[in-house]
Structure formats: C-alpha cells, structure tokens
C-alpha cells in the first residue's frame, strides 16, 4: 500500500528523450533523484520525430532531448519548446554482429552485406544515414548508394530498434550512433565511417512549455550541462 502512495506523492518530472540517450539518461536520472529528494524522473524514449509528434499533439512533458536540431527547431517555432541548448555530440558508425559474417571493414564494403537495417528517413539516424550515403556516392560512384539501398531490409522507427536487429544477428550491418555501439559491445563490432564523409549529430535539450515543473526541468537540464553531467555523457561515448 505504502509504495504506490509514495510514488504518487513524488513530483514526477517527465523527460522525453531520443532513444540513443537511454543508458546515459537513466544514469543521470538516478543522480538527479538523489540530489532532488521527492522528485522522480519518468522517461519516454523514442525516435525524436515521434517525440515531436507526441508533443505537437498535446503530450505533457517537462524536458525534451532530441537527437537532431530539425525536430527541436520545429517545436521552438511552434512555441512548444524554449531556448534549446546543445549538450552532446554523437557520431554515426557502422555496426556488424560479433564475428562480422559479411566481412565488412569499411564504409565501402557495405554492399557486401546481405541485409542492412537503417533508420526511417524521419528518424534522425535515418536522415544522417541518407546524408552519409549521398556523400559516399559522390566519392565511390553513383552506384554505391543504389547498391546499399538494394540491401536495406528494414527502415526502423528508432535507433535502438536498428541496433537490436544487429544484436540479434538479423542484419549483417547497420548504421547507428557510436554510443549505441558502445552500449552493445558484447554483441557488435564497430566500424568507423571516414570523418570527411560522416556527419556530426548535435543533441539539443530544452524545457517544454506544456510541462508542469519548469523549475525542476531547468534543474535537470543544468545537471545535464554540468561538468558532472558531461563527464557521464562522455563515459557513454558522447562528445
């Protein structure tokens, strides 16, 4: 009896965060809850595009941390989010299942995969993937992108679903963030994408207008931006 009542009594800070932030933010929340007695952080992790749609349709949340600027900007323009600040950077990489069955050692080898899984175009990682493939096509020849796209087996709706397909061995290769690859070290191998063909994913965080705890929301963002927060994000592979 007591436990559910305690949960109801605590102040719930609702944080909408991009899927790639799952591990880092859960750790941050533990820290936040010990620093702010009586506050409990509840998360909604999903693709940033989905979080944006939910917020546009009235989902009540206090904080949004997005994996790209585009969706955050749309919410700021609609006056649903205020004063976003970039708090982390991430880098797309190629992941393959442990053992690398398709023998992929560089971006150029991607067409060797039988099955590639990527993010849908509206998901930040999917949009970044398209940009990388375009850049690679201008270097490796126009056929490169077509060859890769012919092997795409699924366009998933958030990056952790992309990662899951490689973890399961269902995909021979996928493009996810470096931080996701770090979170699955035991099951996947990471292959870097040449820096001049790659993009830098910038993560903005902002207080949402519809939230009921703006002060607590600001405190959470302060923690994310603090040296301790940055160090924690750094340990998860963010820059």
């Amino acid at each position: 009896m007591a436990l559910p009542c305690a949960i109801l009594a605590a102040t719930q800070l609702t944080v909408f965060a991009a899927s790639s932030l799952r591990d880092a933010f859960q750790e941050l929340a533990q820290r936040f809850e010990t620093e702010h007695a009586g506050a409990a952080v509840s998360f909604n992790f999903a693709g940033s595009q989905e979080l944006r749609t939910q917020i546009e349709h009235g989902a009540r949340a206090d904080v949004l941390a997005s994996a790209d600027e585009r969706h955050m900007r749309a919410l700021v323009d609609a006056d649903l989010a205020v004063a976003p600040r970039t708090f982390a950077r991430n880098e797309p990489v190629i992941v393959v299942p442990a053992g690398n069955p398709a023998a992929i050692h560089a971006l150029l080898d991607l067409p060797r995969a039988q099955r590639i899984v990527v993010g849908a175009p509206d998901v930040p990682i999917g949009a970044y993937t398209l940009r990388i493939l375009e850049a690679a096509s201008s270097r490796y020849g126009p056929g490169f992108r077509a060859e890769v796209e012919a092997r795409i087996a699924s366009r998933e709706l958030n990056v952790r679903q992309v990662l899951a397909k490689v973890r399961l061995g269902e995909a021979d290769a996928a493009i996810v963030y470096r931080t996701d690859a770090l979170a699955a070290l035991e099951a996947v191998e990471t292959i870097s994408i040449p820096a001049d063909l790659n993009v830098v994913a910038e993560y903005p965080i902002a207080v949402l207008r519809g939230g009921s705890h703006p002060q607590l929301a600001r405190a959470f963002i302060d923690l994310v931006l603090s040296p301790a927060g940055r160090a924690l994000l750094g340990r998860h592979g963010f820059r």
Partner: protein
Amino acid sequence: MTSRSWSAVQQGATIILVSFLLLPVAALALTLSWSDLVAGARHPLLLPALRLSLATSTCSLTLVVVLGSLVAWWVARHRGRLSRLVESVTQLPAVIPPAVAGVGLLLAFGRRGLLGSFLARHGLSLAFSTPAVVLAETFVSAPFFIQAAIAAFRRVDENLLTVARTLGASPFRSFLRVALPLSAPGLVGGAAMSWARSLGEFGATLLFAGNLTGRTQTLPLAVYTAMESDLRAAQALALIMVVVAFAMLLVLRRMAREAGDA
C-alpha cells in the same frame, strides 16, 4: 427496477457505447478535407502498402482457411484430451499480445532462431521479408477462423454424415459435399474476422518483418510511419484503410448470407 427504467438503462448504455465506438471512425472522416484525402491517396507510401496488405492478407487467409478447416474438422469430430489440447493451442495466439508474438516469431524463425538457424544454413531466411509478413498475419489471425470453424462443424448433424456414408460417399467426399456447405455461413464469418485481424496486424509484423516500403510495410505500418512526419497523411491513409476493410467486410457478409440461403 421497473421494466421502464430497465429499458432506459439499456438504451442509455447503447447510446454511450455505440457513440464511443463510432466517434473515432467518424473523426477520421470528418476532420479530413477533400484535398487532404486526395493528397493522402497520392502519398508515396499508400500504393505499395495497399498492394502489400491485400496480397499478404489474402495469402495468410488462404493458409488459415485451408489448414484451419482441416484442423477444425478433426477437432470438432473428436472428443478427448488430445483434441481439447489442440483446440487450446490453436486459440493461444489470440491471447498473446502481438508484440510478444513478434518476438517469439523472431526467436523461432530469425537467423539465429530455433528453426530459423537451421533454415538459414540451407539458404532460407524468413525474417524481414514478405513471407515474414504472411507468417505474422497467419499466426495472429488463425485462432479467429479456427474457433468459428470448430463451432460451425460441431453444429453439423452427425446423422447427415452417416447418411452420406451409407450412400457410398468417402469420408473426404462427405466432408466436402455435406459438412462444408452446411457450415458455410460460420466458415465465411470466421474467415471475415480472421481476414480483418490480418489486415490490421501491426506489432508482430513490425518486430518480425520490419518496415520496408513495398516489401514489409503493410497499411498499418504505413499509417504509423506517416504519423511520424505528417498527421494529415497518416489520417488519409487510415481513412483509406477503413474504407478498404469495410468494403471487404460487406462483401464477406454478403457471401455468408448467400451461403446461408443456399
């Protein structure tokens, strides 16, 4: 309670529930302008998804009806622990959440799955392909047809079958010529429910077959994908899907009625 207030309670409940059930469907149509609908009809996701949905749901319906009729006939004609067990197993997918079904299918038929790893060694890979969509739809929709078929077959008068046998018909022939026509209305009704469940399949498909336009992205997945970027497009796709489903349901209803009259 007086009989008048009892009937008022019934009427009240009917009004509340019926309007609750009708309102979301009505909202899909009423809040969409004609130009939005036209834009939705031209949406690049629509045609591949519509084609895929119709093809895969027809395939899974065929599998379910052909195999399911045989299973249901056997279950309906046998009384015993084994037939009760078979009946329970065929009902299992109906109580399993679709997302759970998707994970299970992946662990069974995926590349590293129980059966999938064996198939993969022989060059057959099911997950994330159009056949995976058919498997997912078959898995979730089979219980609806089988249950209706068992019930319909149990109502077939044993005496008629005996008569057919004494007139020299083989068991197969008496099934085909006596049991099937007599059970037709129930079978068609079950097939309609099963088909509707297939067409609406979402969770198991997303997990087991993935989301790729033209290959595994069925109408519900297209609605979900469109929703991520453009609510109007999602709504137009959803409305078109409702129309397709409703039209099919009317056709099947008519078939069931004609089968009943015949």
